[in-house]
């Protein structure tokens, strides 16, 4: 049985191809807090979970100041 030639004649419906953002989220296992490696290292030293923070930088990037502010607020709340 011969198959008909299958060169696509009508323009194929364009499926949604996963964007790099979607792929990054998938491959790396979920949505990561937006922070630089240096801030990540700083947060790790202080034992801060960045997932709990709201960033104040562009695109809600978490800054050093955000981490410090968070630590201060936690410490203050424990007093």
């Amino acid at each position, binding site marked *: 049985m*011969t*198959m*008909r*030639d*299958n*060169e*696509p*004649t*009508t*323009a*194929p419906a*364009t*499926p*949604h*191809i*996963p*964007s*790099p*953002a*979607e*792929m*990054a*989220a*998938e*491959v*790396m296992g979920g*949505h*990561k*807090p*937006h*922070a*630089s*490696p240096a801030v*990540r*290292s700083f947060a*790790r030293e202080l034992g801060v979970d960045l997932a709990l923070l709201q960033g104040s930088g*562009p*695109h*809600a*990037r978490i800054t050093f100041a955000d981490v410090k502010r968070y630590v201060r607020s936690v410490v203050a709340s424990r007093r």
Partner: protein
Amino acid sequence: MSATSPQSDTALIPAIATDADPEETREWLDALEAVIEKVGPERAHYLIEQLIQMGHRTGINIPYSATTEYINTIPADQQPKAPGNYEIEHRIRSYVRWNAIAMVLRANKDDSGLGGHIASFASAATLFDVGFNHFWRSNAEGNGDMVYIQGHSAPGVYARAFMLGGLTEQQMDNFRREVDGNGLSSYPHPWLMPDFWQFPTVSMGLGPIQAIYQARFMKYMQDRELKNTEGRKVWCFCGDGEMDEPESMGAIGMAGREKLDNLIFVINCNLQRLDGPVRGNGKIIQELESDFRGSGWNVIKVVWGSYWDQLFAKDKQGHLRQRMMEYLDGDYQTLRARDGAYLREHFFNTPELQAMVADWSDEDIWRLNRGGHDPHKLFAAYSAATHHKGQPTVILAKTIKGYGMGGSGEAQNITHQQKKMDTASLKSFIERFDLPIADADIESLPYLKFAEDSPEFKYMMERRQSLGGFVAKRKRRVDPLPVPALAAFDALLKGGGAGREFSTTMAFVRALMLLLRDEALGKRMVPIVVDESRTFGMEGLFRTIGIWNQEGQKYTPVDAGEYSFYKESKNGQILQEGINEAGAMADWIAAATAYSTHGVQMLPVYVFYSMFGMQRTMDLVWAAGDQRSRGFLIGGTSGRTTLNGEGLQHEDGHSHVLSATVPNCISYDPTFAYEVAVIVQDGLRRMVAEQQDVFYYLTVLNENYEHPPMPEGNDVAADILKGMYSFRKGSEGKLKVQLLGSGAIFCEAMAAAELLKNDWGVEADLWSCPSFTELARDGHETERQNRLHPGATPHVAHVTKCLAPTQGPVIAATDYVRLFADQIRPYIPHDGRRYVVLGTDGFGRSDTREKLRHFFEVDRYWITLAALNALADGGEIPHSTAAAAITKYGLDPNKPNPTTV
């Protein structure tokens, strides 16, 4: 596949074992992921670039990887919607496919052994069709695109021309049957089909290198305001196997450096060469991607067809991409020679991949197509390529060799040579492409054509009309320009005067200067050099006409302020190719065919080191002949003994034997300045004024000697052109010889005439023979003419005509192998006279000219000895006289034959 292989590893996190601080790694990668997600891939790219730059600045040696993933460069959701009616185009293409097969099968039906190729075009049909329908503007008038068609795909181009009414059924049946006229050449050959084909491409590798230089020559024409070439493109189709030829890739760096954004390569990556896979153990597309990107090209990969898109949509984890990358070309080939079940089992081999196609039938899987067979993907790639600025583009299109041939050829190792298909295969081909051929008619292999009032025919015509006419159409001539009369070269005709010595190279350069100042031709001259201008005394031209460089001259040349400084400029005239004979030859061909490709007569003059011209680039010279080139090739520093000192690899004693093999190449080995002038002027007459498709090869010398004025006489100029003229008659005498010579060795013959007269009382007539090759051709033609017209008044060859009234043996000496002057032996009058040829057979070596001429036995003493011996053999003098000459001139009778040492 090893996790450390940089090309194949798509896992983002390196193996723990090789990672000294996984926590730190994780933080960096998490940070990057967040940037990709929150800000976007462009920002992520910028950061990565900054990191790499920082690395470079601090001296970390970061190797550069120029490959991307094994997927299409243009993602499905960024691909423009292709205009056109693709159902109609598919029907048209199916007919083209059939006709291309039918013509090859018909040509081989009767075991005539004519050959032909089915599988190459089968893999390339869609690549061509998208170009024909949507991109290529006709160059019939020298204003369109120049398309270098892959040679083995010629049947597809014929099939299309046939359907458009450009070729008849009879011509189709004469594929590879050209001798009786009205035939179609096996491959693109402008010599054989001068109104049809523009570019010969089938000597593998010559298409690509010529296309690159063609594209740059377009920029030259534009910069010099000789032709507006804005928007015109050069398209070059080549095979992936063809890329192994050094010529294919040898100039891609130049194309990148020169930013040839008018150049598009389409490489048909069907993964197969003649005998087997191109890169069974690797990936030709990835290899070519890094080669081209590293050379500054824009690379567009068209690997996968539209049917894969829905799988890419599901591939959020990158498993499919990873599998695509790790799978080998040899295995990809095997996949397409099997079926859907095999493909499912061997390609979709992990649970994740199996899940992707779990609800697909084997037929669905088999339908997964390659990018080069998808007109939508190709349109997107071609469109991106034509709009790309600042770089040449290469499109790497993955295809299947023998596409559509089914079990009898598709993706089989034997497919390239296949020129027969059994009835069952044909039947399934007909079914597959839905062709209107009844079973009973299959054996007769009917050609298919759409009626002129059919939508398909109208569509084809409308597409071509909107693109300016047919692609397969070649312009043959332009309006002739006036050429200077011989008198314009007066300075060369009257000689240098007593005591003034110079070389024929200098004479040629003077002729070139005159032409550069000529009102009509000056601008049309294209001097081409390969870094040897100073060798030939041409450096004065640098300042006067400048070296062309698109970028001008941004630096201060070291010799700025000197009289002939190294001047590069945007409107410069010289093409300086560096040490690059193949490139210069490709340049020369582009200029030498500009009358056809641009409709502008140009006159290229390529001056090379004669040993590195014909011998080094002979295949391009042959292609130049095929292409009906017009221009001058100048072999400088020629002659085995005249170029002293340089030795074995440099001393040319055979380029004239090679040039003689090209039928439309006219070769000369002149001795004197006036000969150069006569030859150059006549070349202009033939090539420019009369639009003859010939080109000239002149060897010129670097030996300085006196140049006499041109001898008086009505026939001298005409005889120079025929290749032999009377330079000086000896006195009347009982003993006479005829001395012939060319180039520098003719001066030795002149000296021998003196020795013969003074030492031995023998008079000599001197004949300068600027072209033994033209003499031989005239002899061949005469002989043939007489053979075909028995009983008619016989024609007489020029050599015979010159020598018949003379007396005495004939001695010829040149700076070339004996074969060169021996060509005229049959035309020496058949009156019992000896014809003795001296030449420089053997390997050259370093020494003075005198020593070398003695070594090769072509100097005045050896000529004298040869003349005396010939007289003795003819019984005119005793042999003891010849023996006396050996003693007198100190010649060693036991000297080894020069060819043996």
